């Protein structure tokens, strides 16, 4: 189960920056364009002080909000 508080905060951050993207979707990656992917990487890097790069922007990591939360948690653990 994804960290609920983190999930809530990420939804809050992303819905303000990506007003057109359906963040509830299980096909989130396919909804994103290059700006959307970059925006997610930038916002999460800043918010959680983690280093994210192009290799992290995979369809698997950006499949849905839960996958994004898991990616951030994984980075924070390192």
């Amino acid at each position, binding site marked *: 189960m994804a960290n609920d508080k983190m999930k809530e905060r990420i939804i809050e951050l992303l*819905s*303000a*920056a*990506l*007003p*057109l993207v359906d963040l509830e979707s299980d096909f989130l990656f396919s909804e*994103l*364009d*290059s*700006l*959307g*992917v*970059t*925006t997610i*990487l*930038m916002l999460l890097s800043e918010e959680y002080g983690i280093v*994210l*790069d*192009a*290799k992290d*922007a995979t369809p698997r990591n950006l499949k849905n909000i839960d996958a994004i939360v898991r990616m951030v948690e994984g980075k924070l653990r390192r």
Partner: protein
Amino acid sequence: MLLLDSIARFARLMPDKPAIITATEMLTYSDLHRRVCERADRLKAEGLREGQPYSFPATQDADFIVIYLAVYLCRAFYPLHTTGTTGASKSVIISDEAWTANAENLIDRFGFTPDLLFIICGPLSHLGSLSKIHPTLMTGGTLYIMDSLKDLNAFFKPFKDPPLPSIKGRKTFNRFASFLVPSSIRMLLQFAREELAAVAHRIAFIETGAAPIAQHDMELLCKVLPHSRLFNTYASTETGIVCSYEFSRYGCRPGVVGKPMKHSSVRIGEDGRVICAGATLMTGYVDNPEATARVLVDGEVHTADLGFIDDDGMLHLLGRDDDIINTGGYKVNPIEVEDAVSACPLVRDCICVPAPHPVLGTAPKLLYVPAPDCEVKPRAIAEFLKARLESYKIPLFYESVEAIRCTFNGKPDRKAYRVKG
């Protein structure tokens, strides 16, 4: 079309040389020539005639280039859509001769060669990427077409050894180039800097343009790509590709777009606007002689860009003398956005203004007054606009306000909001 003559010649001289590569497909010069001729025959049979516009979806694949070239082989033309110098959406006629002049400008200044692989990662419906088909194929080079930069890793696939599976029986490419809008450069520098540095010695040149590039990004790009030639270009759909400035050689100076290229000239009008002349100019707007006459005057295109020319003959850009918002290289007319919002029952009044954006440089922002008794979520406005506007025109920022400031004659006071930001 000179380009088609070149393709026919290369199809004879080096039939197996890759002309176009995508993630799933490779067309040799022989394949390309055959498919263009076949498609042109079909288009003629379907009734396409000389001088006609022929629109079709700009897909990021080899088939788009085949149809595009077939249209010109029929002596018809592919209209490019633009917001352009007057703000309203229009279709632009670019003649065969203008495309050739654009290509010769680029070949002369940048160094297109037969061993070059040119990476196209921007939309082929726009001049920035479409214009690179011509110099690449006129010099016997190879085009690599990507969908977009959504997967930044895909940019580096053709550098790998072996490269893409679609490149059959082909050794590794060693000379690369690309056109990247400033927001794409920022994305690569921020999230793929190590990958970019690892292939730096194989990148011959990078051209940027369509929007202002920040000095910091120019300097960082010079550091990451110390051996590459890096250009900032001045171009528009109406003017063609007019000036370029090699900032990796002459210094990172924001707003400097260099000297006119061989088929172009520029001067500054009395109102401070940039005026362009030469063989790269558009023929006019499709079915819109009034708009054409406003922009194309005595063989010169009068732009909405403000600038000056320094003592060395370099053109400097100072911004635009109108309200068009340049977001990542796309031009957005705020009036078009406001007109679309005006049909939204959730909003009583609004104004669309430029706002700073960390990747795009600038993005449209909507200040809106909610309709009485309405609790408005920005997402609802964005959803409403989704069906009415192209995605890049939909505001990325929203702010609820009590009223929209107007000028004495009742129009939204854009200047006041522009100063405030």
